[in-house]
């Protein structure tokens, strides 16, 4: 065994995407990981098993995905910054625990490495599962990195958002970037923004555990500090008491949803390329934004007025940003590695459906720059 490594591996690396997500988690303060074997997410568990003991954290290989997601939420209530990793077929088992984490307001991070059904090839087909997979009315925060560097950066950000808003946050990875080795720069620990959950100000007895203003986030003490809080998924009042009252229920759900909807400007992150005079706009997320940008640059070189809106946050949907570019454009190309699901959101938000062109690929392969370039040519002909 090599020498014990520290928590933040500051420096320049040539690293596997799955490993970069682990390093992002550690840099963010993760000290609990539980997961169940599934390809192509296994390198996350394997590196966590090695790294957790190095930083005084705990690693658990659960007996299944359900054990993993609930161990993560349990550890989080005990004070841990906790994470699990899985892939599409395992992710749907976890939806049960994600619902619990949403309604119980438990910070945690879920890394989903999307894969095609029954195989490990590339896809973005979980885009709707990530939004709607859990039961009951809920909002989700889902981040879609497009590179090894972004896997690191967005995993850090996922922990920060989870802690800030007391909820599960999903990093929606893909086979492409998870199993790719690329340059990764890890900053000095002091240069990485870390957000920790709000702690109660009052002593036990005075502290009202689920009391918060509209759209606001209540403080969260650790188990064992004397607060003796009842955490139930059942409808509960501000004291946590199980209570069925339509007014109490409605107020509780509205506040939990409002944590995301009212703070969307803080949560939403997008990047624009060549958008100022673009008459044709590509909208892409995750690894698809890479060939999309390549195609845009090529088209620009050939004098075509085209731009790219890259969505880093996919949920909540970046509605203002999509609307702003779609209103000015003649054509909007929704570029996706699935049968074209996010395109419905773009149609709903942005413009009349006749403007939207679906540029899809659903055969386990990422688009080539050439394929997207052709789509641009066809749309601008």
């Amino acid at each position: 065994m090599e020498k014990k490594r520290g928590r933040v591996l500051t420096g320049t690396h040539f690293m596997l995407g799955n490993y970069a997500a682990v390093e992002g988690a550690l840099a963010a303060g993760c000290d609990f990981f539980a997961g169940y074997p599934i390809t192509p997410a296994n390198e996350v568990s394997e590196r966590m098993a090695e790294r957790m003991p190095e930083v005084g954290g705990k690693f658990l290989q659960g007996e299944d995905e359900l054990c993993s997601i609930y161990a993560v939420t349990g550890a989080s209530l005990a004070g841990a910054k906790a994470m699990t990793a899985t892939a599409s077929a395992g992710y749907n088992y976890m939806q049960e625990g994600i619902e619990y984490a949403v309604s119980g307001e438990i910070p945690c991070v879920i890394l989903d490495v999307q894969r095609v059904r029954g195989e490990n090839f590339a896809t973005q087909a979980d885009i709707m599962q990530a939004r709607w997979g859990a039961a009951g009315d809920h909002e989700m925060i889902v981040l879609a990195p497009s590179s090894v560097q972004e896997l690191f950066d967005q995993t850090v950000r996922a922990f920060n958002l989870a802690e800030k808003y007391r909820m599960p946050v999903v990093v929606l990875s893909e086979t492409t970037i998870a199993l790719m080795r690329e340059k990764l720069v890890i900053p000095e620990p002091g240069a990485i923004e870390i957000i920790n959950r709000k702690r109660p100000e009052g002593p036990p007895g005075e502290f009202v555990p689920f009391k918060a203003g509209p759209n606001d986030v209540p403080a969260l003490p650790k188990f064992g500090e004397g607060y003796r809080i009842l955490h139930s998924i059942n409808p509960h009042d501000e004291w946590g008491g199980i209570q069925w009252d339509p007014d109490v229920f409605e107020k509780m759900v509205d506040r939990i949803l409002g944590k995301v909807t009212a703070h969307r400007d803080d949560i939403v992150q997008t990047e624009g390329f060549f958008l100022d005079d673009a008459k044709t706009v590509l909208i892409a997320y995750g690894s698809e934004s890479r060939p999309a940008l390549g195609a845009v640059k090529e088209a620009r070189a050939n004098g075509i007025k085209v731009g790219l809106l890259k969505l880093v946050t996919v949920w909540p949907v970046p509605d203002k940003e999509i609307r702003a570019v779609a209103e000015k454009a003649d054509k909007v190309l929704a570029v996706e590695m699935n049968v074209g699901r996010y395109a419905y959101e773009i149609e709903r938000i942005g413009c009349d459906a006749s403007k939207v062109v679906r540029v899809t690929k659903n055969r386990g392969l990422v688009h080539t720059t050439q394929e997207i370039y052709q789509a641009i040519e066809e749309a601008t002909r």
Partner: protein
Amino acid sequence: MKINPLQKYLRKGTLPHFYCAGCGAGQVLHYFVQAAHELNLDFDKLVGIGGVGCTARIPVFMNVEALHGIHGRTLPWATGIKLHNPELKVVVFAGDGDAASIGGNHLIHACRRNLDVTMIVVNNLTFGMTGGQVAPTTPKAAVSTTTPFGNEEQPFDLCKLAIAAGATFVSRWNTSRSTQAVRAIKKALQHRGFSLVEIVCQCPTQFGRAAIGSGDPIKLLDWIEECSITEQEAKKLPEQEAAKKFVLGNFVEKQGPIFEGTSVYRQMEDK
């Protein structure tokens, strides 16, 4: 007014409890707080976990750190909590549905790991909260709302399952045997490793009416007592006859290594 000395262990505003008249879950709540009181357990460091169902509400009534509301996932919660903070005392309250049906896989793995957690299974032989459907613990031939012509499946012996899977403290009593039940819970709470106490419990509303033709709790308590034999008595019976009974006793009490989360460095330092 004289106040019950155990009342301080109950969460303010949660009484009266929501159990049916004659239900035994309230008795088990009483047995637990009695045992905790006698052991002088620190309730600030106690985490009570319930899944879904009537038994799952027991920790809701207790003035502890409590988790409630997901069916079958009590032990995964307990695993995460205990691994992150081994100082906490973690107790799971599970009905037979939570423990033997939806959470069965988690149970055998918690036993195998010898997780340092206490699990109290209130076995009322049915799915009580949902209306008396057949459970993996319902006796053969018993009528329930989903076995209108009698149960054709073999019931689980949860204690045998736990022993086979590696639990290091395993005990079964029934609600009529309050002294033994409290004593077993005390032993379980003092045990280091996975401890399981099963308490066979009357559910007159859902089990009694359908299975023995009476919703009278006394009749059901008598029926459970008639079906109960000690471990010593069971040894004298043919195996098939004993399998039809509720065998009572402290079956296993041994020490074994507990699982606290993987740490390769700890193992290396030990060498």
